[in-house]
């Protein structure tokens, strides 16, 4: 297969405008004849569904929660970037583009990133018009802050609930279209497979999560906006229901999977407290603006933190990265925490934590100032841990947060299956090997509000699509396959719950394919995962039946797919013999422990094809050309 990213020709700054002009249009009167299926109602899905309905397309939208407003995007805290340069501090589209390419450690496609930076400014306008209550200055204008180590203030925010407010804006736009009849919303409905007819994506098989009924929806194009797959690690900051099923099923039908091993581990999460732990909670990165990260200098030092004098503390980020210090990028801060704990200097239960200490900031600025800045976060921390961060330093530890990998898409956001488009965290596109803070919300909304509404028209106008009826043999066959699989999951009759397999898988992934990876660990994981999968299919128990609301069955289906995806992630991590962004191969580091990229051999997107059951996946490469941002080693020293 030759991978064609369909990047328009011309200078990077003009590609998108030129492409918009050159793309085919669907005549306004014809739009209502097209039916587009949108799976997912997060920022990417809700914005896409609402906007396409506004244009006149018939849209069906699906989510597994009980309301589209509950998609995982709701949990984003920190903010959304945009190159508005309202602060007059030297920001520009070009700078946001540059920062994103560099932050992604040169593993993203320049043309896509440039477009993202361009569109960022329209997103803010759109959200303001919808009534998103962004933070404002006394003069009534929009406020900004600097985020995640950026040197300009380009992050817009709504208290600590930016994702919630942006999603409610998109949700309200979606409900407006539901009321008008342009969107049919199917909540508590899970996509379990893709339907292709004549080599094109033409529908999906879904399970009604209340009645258990399996049925099909057919249309002219399918859009997956189903979020990230960080829950392959079991413990992550993702919502409990976040899963890989939709994109994994599409992958098994021919959609290539881009850079599956690129995972972001966030440095500031609340450490695990026990075996029962069901998820990890993120503490906003903004805390690193005033908190100082440290561990005791001496191994096994179990004194209470206030009894450890300054001379016996290792403020390791300040020591190793004097110019960025506590604000070093996520991947670097996470790895440094792991090293500190691996060296036996971790704090708290199991030694899996480092301190984030506000003592000096409180002394300098006063308790009130700190309360004003972080009061709600301190409260949340105390609620979970029962410790008061004004008195005792917080304990934090890295946790899986975001997946840069996802289905491979071209410039039009179409996967290698014609008609199947992928938006938001579910695609692999814009963040390379590491995502900058506040850029996922931007990407999801860029994809949904401003890119797919154009590119879907181009696809539909340029394709001859025969009508497909619900009883088409390919549709019926896809439906039967899903029914069979559901029956199989229910009839194994073993002893272990889906959750117990999920936990075990998560532990393997965290140990072997987490913050630091090496060939022998990855090879070991590649032995253990198939063995675990085999046990899953012979020793799983799923109580209840398929014809009812059955959360055990939902979990089992998702875990089955994670068990396959995990193997691909390890394969990808093993093949990429370099360190870049969130992917750190311990064999590939400099003498002082920094990541060593290999641009000669690995400046490409690894796009994996499914090899078939029991067969090895097939690697395709999309070479990356850096014509605008010069390849350089990241340095935060």
């Amino acid at each position, binding site marked *: 297969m030759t991978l064609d990213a369909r990047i328009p020709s011309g200078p990077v700054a003009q590609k998108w405008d030129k492409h918009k002009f050159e793309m085919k249009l669907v005549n306004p009167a014809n739009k209502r004849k097209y039916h587009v299926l949108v799976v997912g109602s997060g920022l990417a899905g809700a914005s896409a569904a609402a906007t396409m309905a506004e244009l006149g397309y018939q849209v069906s939208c699906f989510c597994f929660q009980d309301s589209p*407003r509950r998609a995982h995007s709701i949990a984003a805290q920190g903010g959304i970037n945009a190159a508005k340069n309202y602060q007059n501090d030297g920001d520009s589209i070009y700078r946001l583009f540059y920062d994103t390419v560099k932050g992604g450690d040169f593993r993203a496609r320049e043309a896509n990133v440039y477009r993202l930076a361009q569109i960022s400014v*329209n997103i803010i306008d*759109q959200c303001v018009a919808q009534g998103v*209550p962004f933070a404002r200055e006394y003069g009534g204008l929009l406020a900004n802050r600097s985020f995640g180590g950026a040197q300009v203030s380009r992050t817009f925010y709504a208290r600590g609930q930016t994702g919630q407010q942006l999603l409610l804006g998109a949700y309200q736009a979606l409900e407006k279209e*539901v009321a008008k009849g342009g969107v049919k919303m199917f909540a508590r409905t899970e996509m379990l497979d893709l339907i292709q007819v004549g080599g094109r994506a033409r529908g999906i098989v879904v399970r009604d999560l209340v009645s258990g009924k399996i049925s099909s929806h057919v249309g002219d194009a399918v859009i997956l906006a189903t979020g990230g797959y960080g829950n392959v690690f079991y413990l992550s900051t993702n919502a409990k229901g976040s899963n890989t099923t939709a994109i994994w099923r599409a992958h098994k039908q021919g959609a290539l999977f881009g850079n599956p091993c690129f995972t972001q581990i966030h440095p500031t999460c609340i450490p695990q407290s026990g075996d029962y732990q069901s998820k990890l909670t993120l503490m906003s990165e903004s805390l690193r603006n005033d908190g100082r990260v440290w561990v005791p200098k001496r191994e096994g030092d179990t004194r209470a933190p206030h009894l450890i004098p300054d001379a016996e503390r290792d403020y390791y980020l300040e020591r190793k990265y004097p110019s960025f210090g506590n604000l070093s990028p996520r991947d670097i801060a996470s790895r440094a925490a792991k090293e500190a704990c691996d060296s036996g200097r971790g704090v708290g239960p199991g030694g899996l934590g480092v301190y984030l200490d506000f003592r000096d900031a409180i002394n300098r600025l006063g308790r009130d100032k700190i309360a004003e800045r972080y009061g709600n976060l301190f409260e949340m921390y105390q609620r979970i841990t029962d410790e008061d961060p004004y008195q005792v330093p917080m304990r934090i530890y890295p946790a899986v947060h975001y997946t840069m990998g996802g289905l491979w898409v071209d410039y039009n956001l179409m996967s290698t299956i014609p008609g199947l488009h992928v938006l938001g965290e579910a695609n692999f596109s814009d963040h390379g090997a590491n995502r900058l803070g506040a850029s996922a919300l931007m990407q999801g909304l860029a994809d949904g509000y401003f890119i797919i509404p154009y590119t879907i028209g181009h696809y539909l106008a340029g394709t001859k699509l025969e009508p497909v009826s619900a009883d088409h043999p390919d549709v019926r066959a896809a439906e039967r396959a899903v029914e069979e699989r559901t029956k199989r999951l229910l009839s194994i009759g073993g002893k272990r719950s889906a*959750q117990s397999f999920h936990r075990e898988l998560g532990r393997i992934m965290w140990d072997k394919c987490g913050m630091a990876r090496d060939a022998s660990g990855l090879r070991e994981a590649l032995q253990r995962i198939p063995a675990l999968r085999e046990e899953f299919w012979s020793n799983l128990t799923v109580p209840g039946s398929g014809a009812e609301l059955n*959360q055990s069955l939902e979990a089992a289906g998702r875990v089955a797919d994670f068990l396959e995806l995990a193997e691909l992630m390890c394969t990808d991590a093993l093949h990429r013999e370099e360190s870049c962004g969130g992917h750190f191969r311990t064999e590939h580091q400099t003498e002082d422990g920094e990541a060593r990229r290999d641009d000669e051999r690995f400046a490409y997107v690894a796009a994996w094809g499914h090899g078939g059951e029991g067969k090895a996946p097939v690697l395709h490469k999309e070479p990356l050309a850096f014509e605008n941002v010069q390849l350089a080693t990241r340095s935060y020293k």
Partner: protein
Amino acid sequence: MPMKLTLRVWRQAGPNADGAFREYQANDVSPDMSFLEMLDVVNEQLTAKGEVPIAFDHDCREGICGMCGLMINGSAHGPMPATTTCQLHMRSFADGETITIEPWRATAFPVLRDLCVDRSALDRIVQAGGFISVQTGNAPDGNALPVPKQDADAAMDAAACIGCGACVAACPNASASLFTAAKVAHLGFLPQGQPERYRRALKMVAQMDLEHFGGCTLFGECQEACPKEISIDTIGRMNKDYLTGMLFEPAENQKAAGAG
């Protein structure tokens, strides 16, 4: 110190089945567990015994998605103020305690199974008018329209609603007034929301009535139960907007409101 608890849990096999309380023992409960993690452990034990686990809704487990929601000892989201069920920790309970766990109870929220209810009525209230009619692409520059900080802050206070339905569950009349008023207030505080302000109030209130939510008699239980501390003052604002709408909006919008 691990705790031993007795749980009385509402079990109901489906929307049309009869439900009843069943008792379960939860031993070895860590005070650091969240309430839902405690239920996870009980569910793992039920699964191991081949019994059907207790169904309950949840997703983010961070207090923001609004998916979780249990009546715990008669209080929506349990005993802690400003806390969703998923953010409630077992240290809020005493060793040896019996805890009664029920779904939200309201005519407009039919039980689907065990502790899961159908809250789609809340989405339909938003469909009736809980938005600003602006199409993608025709927005002016974000700073073209300054918004006084106090208005933006007041809008944000109201917009913090997570749509969990605790206000309905806590209200003796099962009214959705706090939920509806929060949206009316959020959009009504902003200049962008003015063109549709009164029409919005008329339509959303009318839909609330259609969905069989009860009327508001200002008990204030909703405000107490709200995990996001939405103020009952928003209801006063909604009522004013509604009355203004009845007086000054064109007749067609008033008709949609069913005249109260």
